[in-house]
């Protein structure tokens, strides 16, 4: 797995997804051997419940795709279906 970086990636879950997974925040120590995982890879690695296609992905507070490479220090969020307003 290689040596984890200083910062790694902060992963956040919300609402129903948070409750299904049983956690709200996770620190992923980005290994030197695989420094740029994608949200899709982390979704699988963390064995998150349900289909990735049913959630939206945000990196550093901006919507993006599940295949955007992550960087050390990024904040990744998996957002279940929104119901604002």
């Amino acid at each position, binding site marked *: 797995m290689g040596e984890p970086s200083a910062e790694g990636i902060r992963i*956040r879950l*919300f*609402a129903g997804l948070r409750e299904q997974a049983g956690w709200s925040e996770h620190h992923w120590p980005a290994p030197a051997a695989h420094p740029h995982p994608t949200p899709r890879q982390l979704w699988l690695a963390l064995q998150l419940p349900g289909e990735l296609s049913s959630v939206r992905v945000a990196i550093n*507070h901006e919507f993006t795709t599940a295949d955007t490479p992550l960087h050390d220090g990024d904040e990744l969020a998996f*957002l279940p279906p929104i119901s*604002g*307003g």
Partner: protein
Amino acid sequence: MTVMSLHSSPPSAVAEAEDLQLKVDLCSEAFEPFACLEQWHRQLAAIGRWSAANSHFIGRVRSMATNGTPLLALELEHYPGMTERQLQQLATALCSRHGADSCLIQHRIGRVLPGDAIVLVGIGADRRGPAQRCCQDLLEALKHDTPFWKREWRSDGTGEWLIGNTPL
């Protein structure tokens, strides 16, 4: 009343729409929509930025849960940081597209009771068409593209996260 206020735009948004009067608040306690609107219009008038056409929307929490049983309360979760940023970006982009002059958004977070205002959108523009269309588009953007999640707390003690919104 605790309010997270975003009265000033970030540098990038200012460059795009330097004339937009924008106020976005997430309110953790009940707000009075008409008092908010009156104060906002008074502020705009004081700097000569009142508008001829003003379109508003106020959404209140229903008395019934989606399964037809009485609703005790809605719980509003959000993503601190991203929610505010997203509201501000959406408002700036839509007001620019429609040529609106001012935008007020108040949105509840936390526990909201039936009958309470959950969202207020107020748009000022020079003509009624842009004001109305911008208010509608912003409300849809806020419902579908801003990280808010509603949980219904029902009278039988159960709580359920809602998937998506009521139809338009």
